[in-house]
């Protein structure tokens, strides 16, 4: 039966009844979600809806208390973080998490070699790996970081750091990209640049984006999923979400 479904479509990510408890708090409660390959999906929901926790579950920071995570039909619910990354799951952080005392190039190189066995080589300089260097240069140019490549990350502006955050995960050539509010704290023009950049990405990469800004969300995705208090609330196209009264209620409050 399952094989028949596979032939029709090949979902990138399937969450089945996914839950996690922190003590008495159920942060994610029985979420079911199917994301097709190459799909752009936005996750929305007010603070505490469990969006970031859901990302943490998918990328493997926490093991789920219940339920399953299927990545291209493979049950990865119990995989450690680095193995999930090796399968092609990459994520960014809501609060910038970079190698602050290294240069931009060094940050990107860290991602370039992350999934290669060469990361264990001890007796050959890193600079001798042309492949990594070329790939790193391409990424730097693509993200408009070329001029700043030898600056320390901690000395760069917040906007640049957010861009590096995205550049780094893309350097890994992921299959599934989890972007946790990439535009957090950016000015409106910076946000626009970033949205343009995201829209230009390789269409074969599946992207899940957490975004509070409705304009960005509507511009980016065909389908939007709304979470509320750890539960799946609704799912739909731009218009459906825009006209959904429950969504209005939880975002703007009921009377």
């Amino acid at each position, binding site marked *: 039966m399952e094989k028949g479904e596979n032939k029709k479509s090949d979902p990138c990510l399937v969450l089945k009844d996914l839950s996690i408890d922190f003590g008495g708090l159920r942060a994610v409660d029985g979420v079911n979600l199917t994301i097709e390959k190459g799909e752009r999906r936005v996750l929305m929901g007010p603070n505490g809806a469990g969006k970031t926790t859901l990302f943490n579950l998918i990328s493997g*920071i926490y093991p789920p208390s219940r339920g399953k995570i299927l990545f291209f039909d493979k049950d990865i619910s119990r995989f450690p*973080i*680095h193995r999930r990354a090796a399968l092609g799951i990459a994520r960014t*952080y809501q609060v910038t998490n970079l190698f602050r005392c290294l240069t931009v190039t060094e940050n990107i190189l860290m991602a370039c070699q992350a*999934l290669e066995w*060469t990361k264990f080589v*001890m007796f050959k*300089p890193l600079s001798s790996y042309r492949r990594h260097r070329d790939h790193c240069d391409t990424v730097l140019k693509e993200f408009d970081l070329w001029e700043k490549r030898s600056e320390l990350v901690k000395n760069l502006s917040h906007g640049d750091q957010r861009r590096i955050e995205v550049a780094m995960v893309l350097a*890994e050539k992921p299959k599934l990209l989890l972007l946790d509010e990439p535009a957090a704290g950016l000015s409106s023009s910076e946000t626009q640049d970033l949205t343009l950049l995201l829209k230009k990405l390789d269409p074969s990469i599946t992207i899940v984006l957490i975004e509070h800004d409705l304009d960005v969300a509507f511009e980016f995705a065909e389908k939007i999923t709304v979470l509320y208090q750890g539960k799946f609330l609704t799912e739909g196209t731009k218009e459906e979400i825009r006209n959904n009264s429950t969504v209005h209620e939880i975002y703007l409050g009921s009377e």
Partner: protein
Amino acid sequence: MIDLVNSRTKWIGLILAVLILLVMPPFYTSYWVTLLTQMLIFAILAMSLDILLGYTGLSSFGHAGFFGAAGYVVAILSTRYKMGFLFCLISGVSLSVLISLIFGFLVAHATGVYFLIITLALGMCLWGLAFRWVSMTDGDNGISGILRPDIGLPIALKDPLTFYYFIFVFFLIALILMTVLIRSPFGHSLKGVRESESRMRVLGYHSWLHKYLAYVVSAAFAGLAGVFWAYYNGFISPFDMDLNASIEIVLMVILGGPGTLIGPALGAGIIVFLKNFISAYTQRWLLILGSIYILTILYAPQGLINFLKDWLQERQNKCKKK
């Protein structure tokens, strides 16, 4: 850009180092040659800790344990079993590696203060073993009578100067190996673990394994230093590997500048010098060491080598403005 500005300074530093360490020793008195030998041995030790402390961001407070364990291997094998240099060297380093392979399972899960405490405890275990396993280690009497190695060359290593150059060669080898290591992809990954371990994991690094390997490599070089220490001193006792000894190594790294390799080597030189030179004049050399440490933390928290770098940079910038 920073490298460009400093390249001339780097050359001056290198030439100075070659002069002091390679060309000049025949003109020193044997006291100074011996002191310099000791500095080089501790420089290897401090650099080995720098791989952990400076590059991986893990402060090990049990490093003297590896140093002492390797020293004991040399002491026991060379005095009781009359083993040759090469065998002692390999055995000494191997034991350090073996211990670190076992300890590594315990320590590599920890970070920060927890890493510090676990390594401290394990270091104390090794010290306790040296102290209490009297039938093997002669307890707190230590083992004396370790002869300088006979390496089958026409030159005798009893002479301080030849022994100095002998150690110098190994110091260079260790320095080159460690420099290559930190510039390698693996060395790069260690810096990543230092900066953000959570990010490393999400990128796809099995950070535990990287920390484990760093710990083992670091222990191997500490063992190398321990082997030479036993030969240099002709004597080894539990005091070579107690908590004080471990803390001293950490001080060398912090004083010199963690994450620079050359810095900790410099720090080792300074501390060995103070320990020997000043303690000849006063009983209170620890007081002086403490003050230097406090001054470093206050005025050069990045260590002497970075302090020097910044100072030179500033001076150069001023010159340019003029």
